[in-house]
C-alpha cells in the first residue's frame, strides 16, 4: 500500500462524506427533534431516487433540475406521513413509532417493486463519469458535487432553524415540547414540518445516490444503516454534527478500505458506530439535543 492509495482514499472518502451527511440529515433531525427513529429513511431516499428517475426520463430533464420539483413533493409527503401516521403515536413511547416506520419500510420496498420492478436503475447524468483532479488525486466529479451539496444543505438547514421563527420553534420543541406548547407552538405541526424538511433533504440525498451509484427497491436498507452510523457519530439531532459525522465516516471508509480491503469497507463504519455508542452515546461532537 502506498501513500498515494491512502491519501487518495482519504480525499475521495471525504468528498463522498458530503453525500453521507446529506442523506443522513433527515434521519438525524427527526430523531433529534422528536426522538423518532425513522427506520424507513432508507426507503425515503430510494423513493426520491425513483421519482427522480421517473421525472428525468419522462421530461428528459437533468436530475439536478428534477430535484427542484422533488423537494416540494417530498416535503409535502413527509409532512402528511408524519401528521397522519407518526404523530398520533408520539405519546405512546419510542417503540410504536419505530415499529410503524418499520412497517412503512416494508410496504415501501414492496411497492417500489410493484411499481418500478426489481431492476437496477441509475440516474443518467453528464457528471457521472467526469473527473476532477484535486491535489494531484483523481476524484469523481459527483463526489466533489456531493461534498458541496452536503455543506450547502447543512448550512441551509442551520440557517433555517436559527434564523426563522419556525426553525426556532423546532429547536424549542426539541428541547422541551411542553414548554414550547405554552409558548404557543403547535408541536404536532412542528413535528410534521421537521419530518417534511427531513424528507426534503432526502430528496437531495436520494438523487445524489441515484446519480453516483445505482439503486433498486431494496437499496434503502444499507443506506439506512450508513445513516445511523453518521448520525450516531455526529450526535442525534446535531445538524453540524451530522455533517461532521458524514465527512468522518467517508474519510474513515476511504482510509479503511485502503488498509483492510474494500470487502470490509462497510465494517469500518459499523465498528466506529458500535464504539461510539458504547463510549460516547451522545456522539463525538457537542451536546445532547443541541440545535
Amino acid at each position: 500500500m502506498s501513500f498515494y492509495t491512502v491519501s487518495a482514499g482519504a480525499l475521495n472518502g471525504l468528498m463522498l462524506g458530503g453525500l453521507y451527511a446529506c442523506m443522513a440529515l433527515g434521519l438525524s433531525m427527526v430523531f433529534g427533534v422528536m426522538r423518532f427513529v425513522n427506520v424507513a429513511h432508507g426507503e425515503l431516499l430510494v423513493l426520491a431516487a425513483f421519482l427522480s428517475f421517473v421525472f428525468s426520463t419522462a421530461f428528459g430533464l437533468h436530475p439536478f433540475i428534477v430535484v427542484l420539483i422533488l423537494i416540494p413533493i417530498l416535503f409535502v409527503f413527509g409532512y402528511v406521513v408524519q401528521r397522519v401516521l407518526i404523530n398520533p403515536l408520539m405519546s405512546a413511547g419510542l417503540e410504536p413509532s419505530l415499529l410503524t416506520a418499520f412497517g412503512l419500510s416494508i410496504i415501501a420496498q414492496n411497492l417500489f417493486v410493484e411499481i418500478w420492478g426489481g431492476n437496477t436503475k441509475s440516474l443518467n447524468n453528464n457528471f457521472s463519469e467526469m473527473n476532477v483532479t484535486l491535489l494531484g488525486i483523481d476524484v469523481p466529479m459527483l463526489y466533489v458535487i456531493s461534498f458541496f451539496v452536503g455543506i450547502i444543505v447543512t448550512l441551509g438547514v442551520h440557517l433555517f432553524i436559527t434564523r426563522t421563527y419556525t426553525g426556532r420553534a423546532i429547536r424549542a420543541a426539541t428541547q422541551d415540547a411542553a414548554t414550547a406548547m405554552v409558548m404557543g407552538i403547535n408541536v404536532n405541526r412542528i413535528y410534521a414540518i421537521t419530518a417534511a424538511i427531513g424528507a426534503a433533504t432526502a430528496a437531495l440525498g436520494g438523487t445524489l445516490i441515484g446519480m453516483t451509484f445505482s439503486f433498486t427497491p431494496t437499496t434503502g436498507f444499507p443506506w439506512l444503516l450508513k445513516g445511523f452510523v453518521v448520525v450516531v457519530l455526529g450526535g442525534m439531532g446535531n445538524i453540524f454534527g451530522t455533517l461532521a459525522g458524514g465527512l468522518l465516516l467517508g474519510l474513515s471508509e476511504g482510509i479503511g478500505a485502503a488498509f483492510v480491503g474494500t470487502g470490509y469497507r462497510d465494517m469500518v463504519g459499523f465498528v466506529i458506530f458500535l464504539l461510539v455508542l458504547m463510549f460516547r452515546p451522545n456522539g463525538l461532537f457537542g451536546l445532547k439535543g443541541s440545535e
Partner: protein
Amino acid sequence: MKRILTIVLQIFMITAFAGALHAQSAPKEVVIGASVPKNGVLAAFGSYAGWGYKTAVAETNAKGGVMLKKYGKRVPIKLVVYDDESRPELATKNIERLVIKDGAHALLGSATPPLVISGAVVAERERIPMVAALSPIRAFLGANKAGWKWTWNMFFDELEMTQQQFLTLNSVKSNKKVALFTDNGQDGVVMGMLWGKNAPKLGYEIVYHAKFPVGTSEFGDLIRRAKQAKAEIIIAQMITPDAIALWKQMGALNYKPKAAFFEKGGEPVVWAKILGKSAEGTMVAGYWHPDLGYPGAKELRARFEKDTGELYSQHIADAYAAAQVLIDGMERAGSIDPAAINNAIGKTDKTYVVGPVKFTEGKGKRSAALPTFMLQWQNGDLEVVHPKKWATKKLIYPLP
C-alpha cells in the same frame, strides 16, 4: 390352444387396460415448475429465463401439449413459476412448493449458481428431474461433490469461457497487463481462479486481482490500485448493479483501460441502457447470438423483442432451449415417470436454438457445455467479435 391364448391375451389386455385406466390414465396436464428471480439484484436474469420457459411451453401447448406415448396422446403442459426474489432460500422453498403443492413432474432452474443450486438440492431430494440454465457449469458441479443425479445443466464452461477474453485480444496489440475484478459469489470465485490459470498460458499477466463481496458499491480504492498496476485490460465478473457502479467509477476516476470485459454484469440490456454511450465497446463473453445460424434463432430474438419491446438477451435462448430439452425428454420417456424422464434427458442429442446439446456422461457430469465466443456492445446491440468464423462485427479496440 388358440382359444386359450386368445383368452389369456384378452385377460392380459383387459387387466392392462383396466390398470391403465385405473392407475395410469393420462393426466389432465403435465406440470412443469420453475422458480426465477423476478425481483432483487438478479431480476434481469429472471425476466429472460421466465420468458424463455413460457415461450417454449406455449409453443408445445399450441401443438396440443407434450406427446406421451404411454397414453397415446398429447397432454397440455401447465407451467407454474414462482418468484424467488433473488434469495436462494426462497428458491429452495419455491421448488419444494412446486413439487409438493403443485405436483410438478419436472422442474426448470433459476438463474445464477446460488439460486440454481438451492433449488437443485430440493430436486435431488425429491427425485424430480430438473433442467437448469443460466448457471456456469463448473460452479454448478463444484457445489455437489457427490454428483448431481436429477439435475441437468446446460450453460457455458467457465474454463473455455475464461480463455475467450485473452483469445479475443490476441488479435490486437496491448500491454498484456490484466486487472481482475471478481466478486465472492460462486461464479466470481471459480472464474477468478481460472483467469489466474489461463492468463500466463495465453501470454497475459494478471497485475492486480481485486476481490470484493457481492453488493459492493464503492470501488475507488480497487480502481486506483488497478490503475497503479498499469493494467490496460480489465476483466470483471460481477452482478449488473455492481458492474455499473464499477465502470462508472472507473470513468469518474479517470481510469480508461483499453479493453474491458464485464462477465455476467455487462450482459443484460440494463447495462447498455443505464450506461448509454460508455457501454460502447465493453465486452462480455457469450454463448448465443441470433445471427449464428442455429434453427429458430433469429425468430426467437424477433419474438422476444416484439413481446417485450426490449432488446433481446442471449439468456432467452438458453432458457428456451432448456425448456425444450425437458419437454423433448418427456416425449422420449413417453410418460411422466420422473426416473424415465430423467433417463431420457440424459440421452439428449440434438441441435437447439443454442446449438448442439449433448450432456456429458459420467458421475456428476450432467452438463452440456455451450460453445462460447466474445460479444461486444456496439451501437446499443451485442455483436460477436471473436472468433472470426462467427464474427458479426469487427472488434473495436481500444475502447473509444
